[in-house]
Structures are given as structure tokens and as C-alpha cells.
């Protein structure tokens, strides 16, 4: 068994990978600074050393290609030190390609021919340094190689931190033993109480003897009292010390998970540089708060959304140098990343000094994409308008460029933020460009949460998503078309019991007021009814056993202060469930009597993410006499199906979380559901789409154009008969 701080636990190959990663980061950073005009002698020394280290390490693991590549790069840096070779944009480009090539070679995604091509280009440069400016780009840019999934995640932790952790663990051992002695003392005291009791019981009529016994007892009790006071003080001190100790241990363990933001900065600087150059723009990246500590896991996931925000800023935000000059701005645009801890959260702002977003154009775009009515858009304020930028597939660009405009950008940023229980907001700053602010938890392992009781058991809601916790008098709860709601600050908020969303038993009688949690999802508010509030608590989050698969409504687990397990609510799942209930009406809470009659009819499940299509299908089927339930995506549909009782499933293909093909496959491979007919309804009418659907096991493939005529209904009757 290897202790975790022993590098012997890593294979030579892993150690080599770590080394290459570290050195490549150093190379990238130094190269970008060099080009930005920083003092070059020190930088060139750094570069030379890094290349040299890689060469040495590559030799140990017999990677000859990397030895060659690192060697020519080292040569170039030496020439740079001698001022023979100038490090201008072209040279830096070539060297950065070398860095990429080294990374690929270490991961096995480039071969000897790539290495040879680079070595040739570099040798040409080194032999004829004055022609540097004209050197052509030799190594073509390639798509990044997919990262190899590692079976076990390796972390590098500062050895002193591990020593401190070990120290805490040692103290824990000592303390446990201290308690052992303490227990023995308590046992002695308990025996002495028993003795006194016995003496009191054996008191007889003789007054002298009685007085003597009583005196013994008094003395015994007095002795016990002082001993108890003593023990109490000891236990008190012990508890105080251990609370402190546990806190320190926790902080220390937590800090092992933290890395400074600066870890990902070199690659971002590189991105800004490469991109601005490619687009013919000029930009600098300024970073405030580079040493802000960030949870490793968040840091890893931060790189993609930050890259996207930077891409956006350069492509959409910053103007071309000439335009900027014409409006009196400095030719070089400025992008600022600012990181800081605010109120227990990590706030990262990305802003640029470009022209920002044209709100009127954005309004037109929203109307043109039929995302909202003209009058609604007119009423929306700046903040609400800007929210549309985060919709999937929404782009301000008509043309798709290599850099951005595919419309798959800002929604990615948002989904990353949400996946770690954070948020992202855009602010318009007139004439100063757009600013995006990411708010993320400082650590993923601790969750500020509100504990509640649902159907007799504890559950935790992430505080970040809880707007308010309220007691709503029953009298204030209204319903319309069997949808429950109540009025909060002037707007109607839909309501549903948490037990219903989780598929648990309904609580008996709620009393005079309901405990309601107001949750925010995107711009909406909705209310979840729980049994009771149990209070706020910081929880250390544990993942659920992966064997459970995805449990609808639940994201993870934790332990309560008394050691009992509790479950953490998945707020996204709740929002999806609320959306479904808003359409179906709150079935359980309000119409219990309607159930029996309904069950006789043939039941169809409609799985469709588009509200319009979903409602159309529902209406068509219901008008024909079928009983219809709806689900908003494959995952939701799968949950509904597990409840049983359906005669047919109608599903779309393209849906978030789980698509229709996957859902069909799941149904057809489930022992209980295998015989349930599945009909796919899709816009995709190509033969290969149809084949894909039928191969997954669908019984019927229908294109959405067929709504107008009777095709849909006829097909349904074909499959399951009249309602």
C-alpha cells in the first residue's frame, strides 16, 4: 500500500505526462509574454530550461520524437539568447506549434512524420534566422486530440499539506485514546452512584447507624459532584478543542482541492493572442486576482466557458483597430478577467471595452426567431432581453464563423455554471462593451443548503437556488384549470408538492399553512410544498452510488449532523417536473376523484421537448378520446414510464438530457416495457433517420408534417386500437 504522497504510486508514464504538462504550460506562458514585449533574457532562459527538461525526460521514456522536437526548440531559444534569432509573432507561432506538438506526442496523438515536419521547419529557421519573418507555417493546425480518460484521477498535492493532514490524523488517534480513559472514569463514577443507592436502601431503624450511613452517602455524593464537575470541564475543553481541530482539518483537506486561478491562465492568454491575430484584431488580456483559490474540479470545468466568453469578446465585442481609432479608442482592445471571492462564492467577471451588444438588434432577433411576441419584447427590460443570449441555438450572427456565432456558446457557459450550482449573468454597459459575471461555489464538496422534511425524511435544497422559504396560509392558495398557484410580490407563482415530484406519498393534512420553498429557475419562480423546514446547514456532498443511475429529482447525498443519510435535491429536475405539471395540471393534489374513470381509457405518453408540438399532439389524441400524459424529454419520459400503465409512447427524436432513440432503446431492452409500442414522431424525414429509429426498436416512424391529416391518429389506432 502506497501512502498518497509517495510518487511511487504513479507509473513512469504518468510522471512523464505530469512533467510534460508542467513544462508545456511554462513554455506557452513565456512565449506569449515574450511576444507581448516583456524583458526577454530571463524569459529565454526559462524557455530554454523548459525545452531542455522535456528533452531529458523524453529520453528517459525513450520518446525519440519528443527528444528531437525539444532539441530543435532549445536550439532556437539559444539563438534567441544570442540575439541571432528574433522572437516576433511568426517565430512565436512556430514555437507554440512546437508546444502543441510536444503535448500531442506525449499523448500518442501525433507521430514521427509530424515531428519530422516540425524539426525541418525549425532547422530551416535556426539555419537562416534572418528570414524568420517570411517563414511559412508548416505544421497545419489540427483538431485537438480527445483526452484519454484515466481510470483513476491523480492529484498532485503539496507535500507540506499532506504532512499537516497526517498531523491531524495523529492527533485524532491520541484523542480517541483519551476518550477511552474518560469512559473508564465515568464507569467508576456510575459504580459509586450504585454503591450510594445501595447504602440508602439498606438504611434500617437504628438512628445511630442511620446517621452514619447518611453521612457516608452525603460524603460520597459530595465527592461525586466535584468529580462530575471536573469531568464536565474536561469534556467541555475536549469538545472545544476538537471542534476547532476538526475545522482546521476540514479546511486543510479542502485546501488540497484548491488551486489558484492562474493555473489555467497561460492557455487563455494563448487563446486571446492566437484569436486576435487570426481575426486581424489586437487585444490584451488583463487579469485581476490571478491567485484566487478555486476548487480543482471547478477550475477544470472553467476553462471551456472562459474560452468561450473570450472568443465572444474578441469576435463580437472588440472592433477592428481602424474602427477603434476612428471612435477615439486605443487601437488595442482590452479584455479583463477579474476573479474574487464574494460572500462565500467565487465571482469571475469577463469584460471587454468593445461596442457591446445592440439591444434593438437583439430585440428584432428575438421577434424574428419567434421567441416572444413583439409587444412582450417591447415591455422587457435590458436584463430580460440579454437573458435571451443564453438560449440554446441563439446567435446574433447570421453567418457561422470558425470562432463563434454557431449559437452553441453562451448556453454552454450557462449549463456549466448551473452544473456546479452557480449562475451566469450578462450586463450591458453602454459604450463599454458587455460584461459577463460567473458566480460559482468556492468548493464543490460543500453545499450551503436548506434542510426540509418530505414524507417523513430529510432532504436538502441547495441554498443558491432557494429564493425564499415561506409559510403560505391555505386560504391564499388558488387554482386555475387544476393548477395550484399563489401570489407572491404581485405575480402568480405555480405550486406543487415536493412529494409528488419525487413520487412519494402525499402528507396527510397540511394544517393551516403550507411550508413553501420559492425556487428560481432561469427567470421563473416556482413554489415547492414541503412538510416542514428543518433549518440551514453546510453539507459535505457525496455522490450517490453510480449503480443507482440517475435518480430523478436527486443529485447527490450527504450525512446529517446525527449521522443519518439525507438526499440532495436536483433543482434542474424539479424545474422540468414543474414545467410538466404546469401543462398537465396538478393531478394528485386537486382531483383525486377523477382518477378511477380515467384509468379505463387507453393511455398514451407523449415525450416532446417543444411545448407547441407537445400540446398539439396532446390535443389531437385527447380529442380522439385517449388519456394523455406528457413528458418534456427522454429522461422525464423514462421516469413516467417506470410508473407503468401506458399503452403507447409517442416520442420526438432530438431532446435534451435523453433523446428519443435512447429512450426507445431503453424501453425495448427493459423486460417489463419491451412490448410497449413506441412511435417516433420527428421532423427528420430522411431514410437514414427512419432506419435509425426503427433499428432502435420503434414500431412506427412518423414525420411531423403528418399532423394536419389523420395520419397520426390512424397510426395510433393501428398500433393500440380505439381508445
Amino acid at each position, binding site marked *: *500500500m502506497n*501512502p498518497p504522497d509517495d510518487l511511487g504510486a504513479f507509473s513512469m508514464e504518468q510522471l512523464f505526462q505530469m512533467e510534460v504538462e508542467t513544462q508545456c504550460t511554462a513554455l506557452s506562458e513565456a512565449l506569449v509574454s515574450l511576444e507581448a514585449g516583456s524583458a526577454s533574457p530571463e524569459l529565454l532562459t526559462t524557455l530554454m530550461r523548459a525545452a531542455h527538461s522535456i528533452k531529458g525526460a523524453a529520453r528517459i521514456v525513450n520518446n525519440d520524437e519528443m527528444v528531437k522536437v525539444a532539441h530543435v526548440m532549445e536550439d532556437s531559444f539559444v539563438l534567441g539568447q544570442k540575439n541571432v534569432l528574433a522572437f516576433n509573432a511568426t517565430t512565436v507561432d512556430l514555437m507554440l506549434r512546437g508546444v502543441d506538438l510536444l503535448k500531442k506526442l506525449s499523448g500518442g496523438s501525433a507521430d514521427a512524420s509530424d515531428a519530422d515536419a516540425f524539426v525541418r521547419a525549425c532547422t530551416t529557421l535556426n539555419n537562416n534566422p534572418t528570414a524568420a519573418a517570411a517563414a511559412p507555417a508548416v505544421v497545419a493546425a489540427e483538431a485537438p486530440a480527445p483526452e484519454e480518460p484515466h481510470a483513476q484521477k491523480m492529484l498532485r498535492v503539496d507535500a507540506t499539506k499532506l504532512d499537516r493532514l497526517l498531523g491531524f490524523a495523529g492527533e485524532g*488517534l491520541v484523542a*480517541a*485514546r483519551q476518550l477511552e480513559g474518560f469512559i473508564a472514569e465515568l464507569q467508576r463514577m456510575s459504580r459509586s452512584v450504585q454503591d450510594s443507592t445501595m447504602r440508602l436502601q439498606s438504611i434500617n431503624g437504628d438512628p445511630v447507624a442511620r446517621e452514619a450511613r447518611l453521612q457516608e452517602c452525603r460524603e460520597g455524593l459530595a465527592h461525586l459532584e466535584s468529580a462530575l464537575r471536573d469531568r464536565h470541564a474536561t469534556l467541555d475543553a475536549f469538545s472545544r478543542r476538537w471542534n476547532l481541530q476538526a475545522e482546521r482539518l476540514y479546511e486543510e483537506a479542502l485546501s488540497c482541492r484548491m488551486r489558484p486561478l492562474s493555473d489555467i491562465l497561460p492557455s487563455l492568454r494563448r487563446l486571446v493572442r492566437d484569436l486576435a491575430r487570426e481575426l486581424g484584431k489586437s487585444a490584451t488580456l488583463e487579469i485581476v486576482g490571478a491567485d484566487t483559490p478555486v476548487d480543482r474540479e471547478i477550475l477544470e470545468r472553467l476553462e471551456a466557458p472562459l474560452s468561450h466568453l473570450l472568443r465572444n469578446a474578441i469576435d463580437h465585442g472588440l472592433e477592428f483597430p481602424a474602427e477603434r481609432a476612428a471612435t477615439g479608442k486605443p487601437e488595442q482592445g482590452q479584455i479583463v478577467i477579474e476573479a474574487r471571492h464574494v460572500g462565500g462564492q467565487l465571482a469571475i467577471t469577463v469584460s471587454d471595452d468593445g461596442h457591446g451588444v445592440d439591444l434593438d438588434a437583439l430585440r428584432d432577433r428575438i421577434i424574428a426567431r419567434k421567441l416572444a411576441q413583439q409587444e412582450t419584447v417591447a415591455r422587457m427590460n435590458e436584463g430580460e432581453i440579454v437573458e435571451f443570449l443564453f438560449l440554446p441555438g441563439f446567435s446574433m450572427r447570421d453567418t457561422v464563423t470558425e470562432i463563434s456565432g454557431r449559437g452553441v456558446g453562451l448556453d454552454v457557459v450557462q449549463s456549466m455554471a448551473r452544473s456546479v450550482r452557480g449562475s451566469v449573468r450578462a450586463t450591458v454597459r453602454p459604450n463599454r462593451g458587455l460584461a459577463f459575471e460567473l458566480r460559482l461555489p468556492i468548493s464543490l464538496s460543500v453545499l450551503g443548503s436548506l434542510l426540509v422534511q418530505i414524507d417523513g*425524511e*430529510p432532504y436538502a435544497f441547495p441554498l443558491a437556488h432557494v429564493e425564499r422559504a415561506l409559510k403560505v396560509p391555505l386560504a391564499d392558495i388558488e387554482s386555475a384549470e387544476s393548477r395550484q398557484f399563489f401570489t407572491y410580490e404581485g405575480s402568480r407563482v405555480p405550486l406543487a408538492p415536493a412529494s409528488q415530484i*419525487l*413520487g*412519494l406519498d402525499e402528507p396527510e393534512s397540511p394544517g393551516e399553512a403550507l411550508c413553501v420553498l420559492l425556487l428560481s429557475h432561469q427567470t421563473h419562480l416556482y413554489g415547492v410544498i414541503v412538510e416542514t423546514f428543518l433549518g440551514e446547514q453546510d453539507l459535505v456532498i*457525496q455522490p*450517490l*452510488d453510480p*449503480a*443507482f*443511475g440517475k*435518480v*430523478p*429529482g*436527486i443529485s447527490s*447525498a*450527504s*450525512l446529517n449532523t446525527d*449521522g*443519518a*443519510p*439525507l*438526499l440532495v435535491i436536483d433543482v434542474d429536475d424539479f424545474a422540468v417536473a414543474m414545467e410538466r405539471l404546469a401543462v398537465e395540471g396538478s393531478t394528485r393534489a386537486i382531483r383525486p376523484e377523477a382518477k378511477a374513470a380515467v384509468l379505463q381509457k387507453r393511455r398514451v405518453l407523449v415525450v416532446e421537448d417543444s411545448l407547441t408540438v407537445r400540446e398539439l399532439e396532446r390535443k389531437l389524441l385527447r380529442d380522439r378520446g385517449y388519456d394523455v400524459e406528457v413528458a418534456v424529454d427522454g429522461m422525464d419520459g423514462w*421516469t413516467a414510464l*417506470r410508473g407503468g400503465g401506458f399503452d403507447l409512447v409517442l416520442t420526438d427524436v432530438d431532446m435534451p438530457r435523453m433523446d428519443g432513440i435512447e429512450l426507445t432503446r431503453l424501453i425495448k431492452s427493459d423486460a417489463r416495457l419491451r412490448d410497449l409500442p413506441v412511435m417516433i414522431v420527428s421532423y427528420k424525414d430522411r431514410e437514414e433517420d427512419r432506419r435509425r429509429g426503427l433499428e432502435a426498436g420503434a414500431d412506427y416512424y412518423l414525420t411531423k408534417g403528418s399532423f394536419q391529416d389523420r395520419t397520426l391518429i390512424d397510426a395510433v389506432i393501428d398500433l393500440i386500437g380505439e381508445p
Partner: protein
Amino acid sequence: MNDHSPNSGSLLPSEWREEWSRELAQPLGEATAEDSVAMLVFRLDSEWFSLPANVAVEISRTPVIHRLPHRGKAIGVVNVRGRVTACIDLASILGPLEKNTPAGNRLIVWKHHDWLFASRVDEIDGVHKLALRAIDPPPPPANASRFTTGLWNLEGRSVARLDEQRLFTAAREALA
């Protein structure tokens, strides 16, 4: 690492240490290794079952079990030494027992490959040596028992010898 820590041994009660020292000092008997296997015997409802003792890693009083929504009554989670661990009512997998009430007051933590899970049982009758030749075939028809590979007699009662491979695979599948 523990071997170098000066006092770690004293955390164990001294009688355990002696007992285990004696146990470990025994030469490996040929008969025990070849012809018999140590079985953990437990009761669910009115039926007695047994599994090889080495697949059980821990036995304790039943702590609080938290149900898992959308997974039925037989599935939940439980705290096993600070880890939230899956808990499955084996009775739900072994088929309808007489009462089918998971009211057991003992928790057994099982280990199958690297997967840990717990289940509640009504009673534990400890570990017994089972001579391999003392196992009878399961009651006919032969294909009726999915998990029982044989029956054996312990102090006058019939105990089912369960196939841990099949049982635990079914338990794992029951979670999703």
C-alpha cells in the same frame, strides 16, 4: 504505515488480539481449505439463508435508512462508516417471502468485487463451517431457484446456500 505507529495495536481489545494471534498462528489445515467453507447464516422473515462469510465485511445494528425516491420500498441509502451506501432489501430480490416486511434489526454490509452495499436482515446466526459434501440440491423443480444452489442442515433447520455472484448482480441491477 500502521506497523510503525507505536501504539496502534492497543486500539484493539487485548483478547481479540490474542484470539487472532492464535488463529493466525495455526497451520493451514488441508481439510478446512478444501472441503468446507465458512458461511454466514442469516434469517429473512421465516427463511434461513447463507452466503460465504468472506463476502460480508461488516455487521451492525440497523441505522436509519433513507428511501430513494422513484426506486420503490426495497431500495434506500444508509450511512456505513461515513459513506452514504446503497441499501437493498434482499427479500425483494429473493422473491415473495411470507410477510415481506423488511423490519430487520441487523445490517450486513456486503462486498462484491469493489462494490459495497448493505442489506437488512431479521436475525444473524453467526458463521458456521459448511462441509461441501453436506450440501443437498435445491428442492425440485431445479430451475425454480434462481439464487439457491443447494440446501444444508444446521441444527435441525434447512438453510439455503445462495449464489453470491448471481444474487449480488441482481441486487446491483435492482438499483437502477
